[in-house]
C-alpha cells in the first residue's frame, strides 16, 4: 500500500461570513486505493474540521456525495485518486445553490421529484386478500434500469438545459416518472403527463445526452426523456386526429 501527497483545491463558502466562495488548498497524505471522499474525510478529521460536505454510505448507493471533481459531476466515493494527476479541484454540484462549502441546496430537485409522483398508482384498487400484482420478467425488464436511480443529482449538474432554464423538471425526476409509466401495474400516467409532458417537462430537453454519460448507476435518463417525447407526441396526434379515442 503506497502513500502519496494529494493536493486538493476545495471550494469553501460560509454563508455567515463570505459574500462569495473561494478555493482552499489542502495537502493530504493519501493511500493509493483512496477515493476523493476518503481524502475529504481525512481533511475533516486531521486538517480542518470546519469543512462541510454530505456523505453517508461510501459505496455509491446513497447518492449523497455528488460533487464536481475537476469540473465533472462525480460521486466522491467513486472517484479514485489514482485516476487523477496534479491538483484535484473539488466543487459543489453545479447548477444548485451552495449552502456551505460542498453542501448544496437541493430543495428544487426534491420538489420536482414530488411533482412527478414517483410511486406506483395502481390501475385498480385491490384487497390484500386478492393477492399480489403479478408481473412477468419481460414487464420488469421494461423499466428496471430506471429503478437504479439513486437521486444523486449528477445528471442535473451535467445538464446544460437545467443550468440555463432552472424550471426544467430535469433528467432524474422525468426518468423516475417514466419508470412508473412503464410499469405494467401502474395506472398513473395521465396524472404524471400533466407535469412531464408540459413545457417545463421533456420539451425543455434538447437531448445533449450528458445526463446519461455521467450517471454513476448507468441509468439512461436521456433515453427516458426521448421516449416520453415520442409517447407525448403520439398522445397529441391521437387527441387531435382521432378525437374520442382513448389514450
Amino acid at each position, binding site marked *: 500500500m503506497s502513500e502519496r501527497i494529494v493536493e486538493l483545491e476545495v471550494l469553501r*463558502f*460560509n*454563508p*455567515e461570513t*463570505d459574500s*462569495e*466562495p473561494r478555493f482552499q488548498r489542502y495537502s493530504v497524505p493519501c493511500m493509493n486505493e483512496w477515493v476523493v471522499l476518503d481524502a475529504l474525510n481525512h481533511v475533516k478529521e486531521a486538517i480542518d474540521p470546519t469543512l462541510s460536505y454530505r456523505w453517508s454510505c461510501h459505496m455509491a448507493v446513497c447518492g449523497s456525495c455528488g460533487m464536481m471533481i475537476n*469540473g*465533472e459531476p462525480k460521486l466522491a466515493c467513486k472517484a479514485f485518486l489514482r485516476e487523477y494527476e496534479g491538483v484535484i479541484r473539488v466543487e459543489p454540484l*453545479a*447548477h444548485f*445553490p*451552495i*449552502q*456551505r462549502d460542498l453542501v448544496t*441546496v437541493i430543495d428544487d430537485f426534491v420538489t420536482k421529484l414530488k411533482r412527478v409522483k414517483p410511486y406506483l398508482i395502481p390501475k385498480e384498487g385491490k384487497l390484500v386478500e386478492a393477492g399480489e400484482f403479478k408481473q412477468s*420478467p*419481460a414487464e420488469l*425488464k*421494461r423499466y428496471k434500469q430506471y429503478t437504479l436511480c439513486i437521486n444523486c443529482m449528477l445528471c442535473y449538474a451535467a445538464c*446544460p438545459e437545467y*443550468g*440555463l432554464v432552472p424550471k426544467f423538471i430535469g433528467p432524474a425526476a422525468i426518468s423516475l416518472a417514466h419508470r412508473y409509466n412503464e410499469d405494467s401495474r401502474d395506472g398513473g400516467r395521465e396524472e404524471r403527463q400533466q407535469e412531464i409532458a408540459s413545457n417545463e417537462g421533456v420539451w425543455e430537453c*434538447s*437531448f*445533449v*445526452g*450528458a445526463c*446519461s*454519460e455521467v450517471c454513476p448507476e448507468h441509468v*439512461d435518463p*436521456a*433515453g427516458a426523456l*426521448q*421516449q416520453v*417525447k*415520442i409517447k407525448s407526441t403520439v398522445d397529441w396526434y391521437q387527441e387531435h386526429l382521432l378525437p374520442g379515442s382513448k389514450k
Partner: protein
Amino acid sequence: MSAHGKPYVREVSRYGWFFRSPRYLRYMAREVTCVFIGLHVLILIVALMRLSEGREAWDAYLANLGSPAGVALQMLMLAFAVYHSTSWFNVTPKAMPVQIGENFLPGVVIVGAHYAGWLVASVALLFLAGVF
C-alpha cells in the same frame, strides 16, 4: 436555511457554456450542422424558382452549381449533412428501444436499420434520377 445565511447562487453563462466539456461541443456540432441541411433545402427551392423562369434561368442555375465554388459548397454541405445525420442515427437506440420477449434489441441493430433505410432511399433516388 435562512437562519444560516443566504445560499450562494453561481450564475451560468448563456454563452460559451458549451466550451466547458467536449460532450457539450459534440452536442453543439450535431445541432449547428443542421444549418447546412437548411442551406441545401434553400438551394433546392431556388432551383424550382429558376425552373419556373424558363430555360435560360435554369441553365444559368446549373452552371452556377457546376462551377468550382458551387461544387465546393455542395461538398461542404454534404460533409456536414452526413455528420448531422449519422450523429442522430447513432442516438436512435435511446429514443426507440425495441423489446422482443424479455430482451432489448442491441443498439447496433437499430442504428444499422437507419443506415439501411438511408441506403435504400439513396439508391431509390438515384434510380429515379436515371443514374442506373
